[in-house]
């Protein structure tokens, strides 16, 4: 699984990365987490309210920081069987 955390480096983006790592660890899945801080790249996903979360090329969440449990719910069905 390839996860991208979109955000220029504000507090919310750091928080999103943290909860995403927690969720990945809790699920015990293999995932590569990448931070995207470049503005044009962020805008390229259509995200205008940061932070945003992209899983395997698809924007699954933006404009808020979820809880680790919420990220787990988002990731779980996407774990390739």
């Amino acid at each position, binding site marked *: 699984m390839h996860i991208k955390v979109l955000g*220029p480096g*504000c507090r919310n983006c750091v928080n999103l990365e943290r909860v995403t790592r927690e969720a990945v660890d809790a699920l015990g899945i293999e995932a590569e987490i990448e931070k995207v801080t470049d*503005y044009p790249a962020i*805008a390229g*996903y*259509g*995200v*205008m*309210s940061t932070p945003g979360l992209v899983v395997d090329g698809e924007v699954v969440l933006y404009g*808020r920081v979820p809880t680790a449990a919420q990220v787990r719910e988002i990731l779980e069905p996407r774990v390739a069987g």
Partner: protein
Amino acid sequence: MTAPSTSAVTSSTARLVAALVAAAAVWVGLFALNEIAWDVALGDWLGLDLSHRVVDAVHFFLYDVGKILLLLVGMIFVIGLLRTTLRPERVRAFLEGKPLWLSLGMAALLGAVTPFCSCSSIPLFIGFVAAGVPLGVTFAFLVASPLVNEVAVVMLADMFGWQLTGAYVGAGLGIAVVVGAVFSRLHLERWVEDFVFAAPVASLGADGHRPTLAERVAAAREETRDIVGRVWRWVLVGVAVGAGVHGWVPTEFFATHAGPGNPFAVVVATLVGIPLYSNAAGVIPVAEALWAKGMATGTVTAFMMGTVALSIPEAVLLRRVLKPPLLALFFGTVAVAIMAVGLVVNLVL
């Protein structure tokens, strides 16, 4: 199978409604008890003399901070329930391909009601402009957003009354539309950093899902926590500075130096306000104190608007997407518009 799950949904909705009603009752109770509670705490428990100047200032501070935070929590939560689906991503879809005058007006209105944190202004700018939203319309949104929002409206209404709040909102939206219209006339695209137009564009489609009450409540709670978490420090500082002005600046001081008869004061107030970095929550209590000491209404308005609409951090952020001439033109135009509002208000009132 359907029957039990439907009744489970109904009972959880009923529980949620009951919780909302209970929360509303607690809120009303706290609001009603706010002043008495501080009388009792300071006067009876601590045994202080409430008529003493310092004690009075502390009492005013605690009471005012309590009241403002309660108002903000209540209002932001209610607004959050209503605007769950309003996000900049959807605003852009509204604005694309509309006639200019309509999109300018809509951009100003949507800028006022869309939740938006200044840390998102650059992705927003790129997202709008790269998608073909005209520069003028984008600027109208960026001007209206910090100037007119629920925090400003709640605090203005509390401290200045509804009449001035209405005038402020009208003037703020007016400035956004005028700045947007002026910028649409000039061809300024060459002063936008080139990478903005080269940025890839994607749109996040709305999936047509209507949020349930539980989702609305969750979103409103999150938004309340986020916004109040961001502004509470500003409220503390703003009310403290305001209390200081109330207690220690001589009465009529500003009436003498910055009364309605002094047009120069509007210019100075705007120029003093611009480099100050604060949001509406921090500046409005200070503005109220200046007003109480006799500063003219238009001059106070110009000071508030200059402080919230423009700031040095904002300039640093926008410099990443705007070349210096356009950045200067943007600040200059907004500053002149704010001064004009201040002068007109002073003439009319």
